[in-house]
Structures are given as structure tokens and as C-alpha cells.
């Protein structure tokens, strides 16, 4: 599907989503509460068939966190980006590891680096950081570590 066709199709699925212009790929902003239902459609709908989740990441904007998912379809060769704003003090979003197995590790990395809680994740614990880092999120902008960090 072309970007325009994708936009029409996705608008039918989720009318409340807003779209960003000017990017390489179609980008839609959604509310965290709509995520589970939309993800299911993205994965299973025959016309969409986004079977490859190639990037999961998070950005700390100081005012809020933003989850970013990149999907592509190896069958239809189209790509979409999904973004969702999260509350910085209590970031929670539904896991998509049941639809895309790769999200398991990606979400664990976002969990340890940004402290985002993935609801219903099968195994939400630290991925790369060693023991003792629970609750400390080094990729947050206000992260301080007086022992290991030298501030410029």
C-alpha cells in the first residue's frame, strides 16, 4: 500500500489517531489505551500485515516520554511508525511481545533505560544492566550517577 492508502486504512481502524507530516514514513500518534487493539490489527489484518517490528525505542522529552515503534511488512513492503506519549511519572503501556516476539527484549531494554512499565509483559526484568540497577534509568535526561559520571 502507498502512504495515502495506508493512512485511509488506518483512519478507518482508529479514527482518533493523529498523523505527522514530512517524515519518510507514515507516522501516527495514539493514546496508550488504544495501543493493544491497534497492534493486533497491524499484525493480523491481511491488508496491513506488519509482520516485522524493526525498532522499539523511547525518547525522554523532559515533559513526557514517547514510545516509538517502527513496523514493516515483508509481504506488502510498506512501513509505518507508531508513537505514543506517556506520563513521565508513571509511564505504562501495553506490551506487544505477544504479537512480535522481538518486542520481548526491546521492551526490557526500554524498561531498564527509561523505566517504562509494559503491562502484561511475560518477563519484565533488566536486560543489559547488571544487578542493582532496578529503578535507576540511565537514559532519562535527569539521571545522575556521582560515582561513575563526570558532568561536562
Amino acid at each position, binding site marked *: 500500500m502507498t502512504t495515502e492508502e495506508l493512512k485511509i486504512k488506518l483512519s478507518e481502524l482508529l479514527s482518533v489517531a493523529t498523523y505527522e507530516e514530512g517524515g519518510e514514513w507514515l507516522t501516527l500518534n495514539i493514546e496508550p489505551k488504544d495501543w493493544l487493539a491497534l497492534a493486533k490489527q497491524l499484525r493480523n489484518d491481511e491488508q496491513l500485515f506488519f509482520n516485522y517490528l524493526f525498532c522499539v525505542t523511547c525518547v525522554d522529552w523532559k515533559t513526557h516520554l514517547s514510545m516509538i515503534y517502527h513496523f514493516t511488512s515483508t509481504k506488502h513492503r510498506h512501513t509505518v511508525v507508531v508513537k505514543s506519549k506517556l506520563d513521565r511519572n508513571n509511564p505504562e503501556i501495553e506490551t506487544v511481545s505477544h504479537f512480535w516476539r522481538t518486542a520481548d527484549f526491546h521492551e526490557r531494554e526500554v524498561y531498564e533505560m527509561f523505566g517504562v512499565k509494559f503491562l502484561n509483559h511475560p518477563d519484565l526484568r533488566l536486560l*543489559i544492566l*547488571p544487578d542493582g540497577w532496578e529503578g535507576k534509568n*540511565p537514559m532519562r535526561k535527569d*539521571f545522575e*550517577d556521582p560515582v*561513575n*559520571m*563526570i*558532568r*561536562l
Partner: protein
Amino acid sequence: MGDLKNIETTFPGEIHEAPGGGIVLSKLDDIINWARSNSLWPLTFATSCCGIEMMAVASAKYDFSRFGFEVARATPRQADVIIIAGTIVNKMAPVLKRLYDQMADPKYVIAMGACAISGGPFFYNTYSVVKGADHVIPVDVYIAGCPPRPEALLHALMTLQQKIKAGLTREQIRSSD
């Protein structure tokens, strides 16, 4: 006689001419250092982009075998020198220490590039990088660069050889006291 002159410049010792040939006089320590310095096998250890330069130095174009760094060994038990080629993070530090401890004496360390010297581009504002590999293990030779040219690594390897021949490595100084 030309051959003997050549020996005098590369081999530690004095030549005393005698009828029917010559006698070389030397010290056992010097001969051991000479032998050791000309057979230094590095450990296969690289943690980032400096490792690519190190591989280039091992390959045919630069070829550190020419200087006695014959072949990189994949086990610390058979290695004489560890070239710290890349960033050392806090999680890697205990592994580096363990590899160093497993190497048989005499052993030498070269810190290659800005990361191994001081943390380099990761000195500021990072929680995970060791600010210099010499916080973990003692270093004999440092090479500046990010990453250093292959020629710079060759120069460092030869500097290490000179250091060993002169008896000026840390262990040699300690054992001579």
C-alpha cells in the same frame, strides 16, 4: 666480518675476534630480554573500532608478524601481550582483569586509542565507561588516536620491544631491586 657487524647491532653482546672466528660475550638477562621481545604474541581482544585497525595491522598489508608479533592467540594462556583495542565499559572491566590474570608471565599491555587511555569521547556524561583501562590493569605503552593509524600501532609494538630490551618494563624494574 660484515656478518659479525650485523650481529652486533641486533644482538646484545660484544664480539671478541679470535683466530678462526670470534666469541660473543653477553649477559643471560640481555639474551632473555632479546628473545622475549622478538616473540610477543598478542591476545585476540578487541572491544570496538580500534579492533578493526588492529586486524588491519595483523593482515598482509601491515603485517605485525614481521616484528615478532607472529600470530594472535585466542586464549590468554598462550598470549604475551594484550592490546586493549577499544572502549572498556564497567561490565567488561572484570572480564579484562580476568583475561590479564590468566596470561602467563611475563605479560605486557598496550592501551590502543583514546578510549583505552582515558575513556576518550565517553569521558563525560556517561554512566557505563571506564575512564582509562589503567584503572583495571597496568599499561606499558599508550597509543594516541581515535582510532590510531596502523603505523601508530606498529610504532607502539616496537616501542614495547625497546622497553623490554632495555629492561624497563614494570616487572623487570621490580625484579632487579
